[in-house]
């Protein structure tokens, strides 16, 4: 739903003056010609006019001096665009009664998402009627329309002919049926683009839709901004491309206060009150997940004065001791007079601040760190790849039978490990080739040489044959015959022969050392 406050600036002026709309109103102020003026570099310029001034020929946008020649009785008031915008923001929050979120359409419009909420009001017609009734009850002239896209609703609200009872509701399969008659200004284009289109002779949306996409795309090929490209606006109107809107979200300023039974005049008592307020504020901000960047401490005195002390912090904080320490320096020149009866602490500027661990280092120094903190410290310095735990994997290949997982990953549910296979305590990262001297041609070697040392095999157990995983590897991968051996000095290793002499998958089998037994 798009809402256009037709006369927002003047409606605000009327509300402020307390007079009703129209020439027949009892207030004479609106019956006389009146204009709101904005100061520009070339002098005052008319920003808004009422109906009486309009009838005299005063238009918005002309210089005040020119308008005075047409209508000498023109009364002027200064315009207040900032106030209008603030009013519009509050209006957008108020308009969330019809939908979960609303967006500003500066300077005088609103867009409200009413998807799925119309049935709460008894249909879209009833929703529109309710909106019109509420706006007129507030004394605001408004035009509202409902359409499937924000662009179409805006076009209908600004330029649609509100003839029938549901003329402001866009329904049906093809939205262009109703929209072809609207002027091209309904596309929310910039003024220079509108001028260009008028010179090209394209006045209606139907004209634009009729000349084809290619021509429009070529003519506006270097216009990136949606407001300068009629094709993008047309697609947004029809819902072919998304149009993100920035919703208005109401936030409350955190505020805590203490009323004092007896006016206080002494600094120690005030410090006590400030400490209480800081603790309350910390609790409040903690609940919101926020930290204060700016704090305001206001104290109301008995004799009718308000003393305000402001504080800004470099980073969002809510620690009560920190806040008290900062305020203590600012309260030195506070003149309590006959006493302070109300103290209020507000946080006008807050930023998200997550919950922090209190006194991490001191606690760790005394009781040791927790496992998660230890892992965090190790990971930060050594990298996540360095701190891991071995987890079993369902594979018979020794180097595949374990995988390395993050240190705190839970143990997956697996079957029991094989208990009847002895496995080495440590495994080399890649098996190292060893030179062997056989006793028999295809049996266990008698000697092997590894890293320059000669090992004489005294005892051995094996072979334990581990076939390659044919479902994962190529067909030429050779099998392995593992032997657990102990050499003459008692060193125990895990070696294997890679392949058989007769398997036809390479030459003579090679020997590797893969594991070191305890």
């Amino acid at each position: 739903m798009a809402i256009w406050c037709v006369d927002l600036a003047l409606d605000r002026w009327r509300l402020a003056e307390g007079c009703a709309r129209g020439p027949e109103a009892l207030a004479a102020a609106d019956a006389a010609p009146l204009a709101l003026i904005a100061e520009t570099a070339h002098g005052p310029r008319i920003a808004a006019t009422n109906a009486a001034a309009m009838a005299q020929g005063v238009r918005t946008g002309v210089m005040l001096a020119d308008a005075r020649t047409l209508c000498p009785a023109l009364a002027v008031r200064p315009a207040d665009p900032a106030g209008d915008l603030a009013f519009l923001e509050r209006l957008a929050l108020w308009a969330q009664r019809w939908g979960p979120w609303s967006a500003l359409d500066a300077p005088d419009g609103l867009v409200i998402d009413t998807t799925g909420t119309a049935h709460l009001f008894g249909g879209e017609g009833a929703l529109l009627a309710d909106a019109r009734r509420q706006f007129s009850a507030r004394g605001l002239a408004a035009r509202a329309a409902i359409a499937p896209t924000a662009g179409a609703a805006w076009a209908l609200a600004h330029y649609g002919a509100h003839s029938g009872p549901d003329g402001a509701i866009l329904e049906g399969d093809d939205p262009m049926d109703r929209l072809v008659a609207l002027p091209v200004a309904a596309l929310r284009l910039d003024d220079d683009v509108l001028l260009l289109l008028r010179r090209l002779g394209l006045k209606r949306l139907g004209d634009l839709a009729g000349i084809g996409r290619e021509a429009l795309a070529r003519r506006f090929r270097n216009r990136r901004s949606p407001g300068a490209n009629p094709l993008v606006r047309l697609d947004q109107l029809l819902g072919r491309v998304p149009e993100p809107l920035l919703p208005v979200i109401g936030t409350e300023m955190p505020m805590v206060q203490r009323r004092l039974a007896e006016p206080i005049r002494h600094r120690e008592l005030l410090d006590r009150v400030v400490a209480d307020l800081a603790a309350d504020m910390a609790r409040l901000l903690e609940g919101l997940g926020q930290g204060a960047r700016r704090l305001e401490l206001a104290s109301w005195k008995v004799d009718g004065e308000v003393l305000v002390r402001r504080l800004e912090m470099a980073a969002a904080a809510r620690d009560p001791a920190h806040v008290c320490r900062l305020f203590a320096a600012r309260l030195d020149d506070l003149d309590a007079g006959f006493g302070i009866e109300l103290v209020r602490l507000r946080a006008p500027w807050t930023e998200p601040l997550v919950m922090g661990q209190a006194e991490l280092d001191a606690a760790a120094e005394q009781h040791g760190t927790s496992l998660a903190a230890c892992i965090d410290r190790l990971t930060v310095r050594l990298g996540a790849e360095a701190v891991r735990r071995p987890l079993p994997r369902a594979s018979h290949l020794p180097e595949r039978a374990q995988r390395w997982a993050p240190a705190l990953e839970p143990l997956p549910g697996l079957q029991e490990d094989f208990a009847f296979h002895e496995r080495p305590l440590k495994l080399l990262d890649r098996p190292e080739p060893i030179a062997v001297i056989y006793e028999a041609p295809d049996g266990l070697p008698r000697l092997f040489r590894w890293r320059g040392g000669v090992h004489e095999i005294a005892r051995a157990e094996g072979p334990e044959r581990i076939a390659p995983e044919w479902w994962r590897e190529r067909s030429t991968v050779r099998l392995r015959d593992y032997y657990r051996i102990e050499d003459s000095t008692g060193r125990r290793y895990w070696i294997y022969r890679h392949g058989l002499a007769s398997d036809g998958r390479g030459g003579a089998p090679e020997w590797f050392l893969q594991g070191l037994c305890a």
Partner: protein
Amino acid sequence: MSRITPLASAPVLSPSLPSSALPAGLQRGLASSAKSARWRAGLATGCRHAEVFAAAGDASGAGLALALARDALQREEDDQRPWLWVQDKAAMRLSGRPYRPGLPVHLRHRLIHVAAATPEDALFALEEGLRCRDLVFVIGEIAGNPRSLDFTASRRLSLAAEKHGTALWLVRLDARADLGSARMRWRAAAAPSPPPRWNPQAPGKATWSAELFRAHTFQPGHWTLRDDGIELASDPVITTSAPDHGDLVRGSGARSLAAG
């Protein structure tokens, strides 16, 4: 669960304390020099920082450190906290990484492995691990004599271990026994294992020839230690005659069944 009192908290040098109040092996000073105890397997040493010097070409250093850690842990069986194994890059290259199926059954699911790139990183990881209250013990493996592992670093590790009560077993691969503040210093080498009963041609239970060459509270000595899967058994002399009967009798240790 009764934790062993760390050495630092026991007033061992107080003259008013009768010497019988302390277990043998914890006495220091004059009382210990006269007749200090001999270490034996299963003794509650209370030692929080031990070094094992071993060759990098076999896994005897890590195996003995793990066996000593398990031996010190015997009294805390229901402890399910994880343990840390820190290796620097040279140690990993020389002697490989721990292999889960080969670890003791009660320890393999609790291992957290730290692969440090340099000895400095390994020392940092060791100290952080000692400060963690959720680790049951820490095993470190550092190859050679890096410049960063000097007496100061060793003393740091000792203090951290004794302050937080976490045991550190530091394996020094191919290292010279230079200055260090470890309470017990071992030298380990592989020893021929006893032949298993059912297949005498196969390698038996892991056996090491271990020499305790420097200790605060124990006499130096030489043992043949064997990890029979249940507990650490120690033989004062190397015996090759006693056959291993497998796991027939729990807790029989090195004692032969035939010998009664």
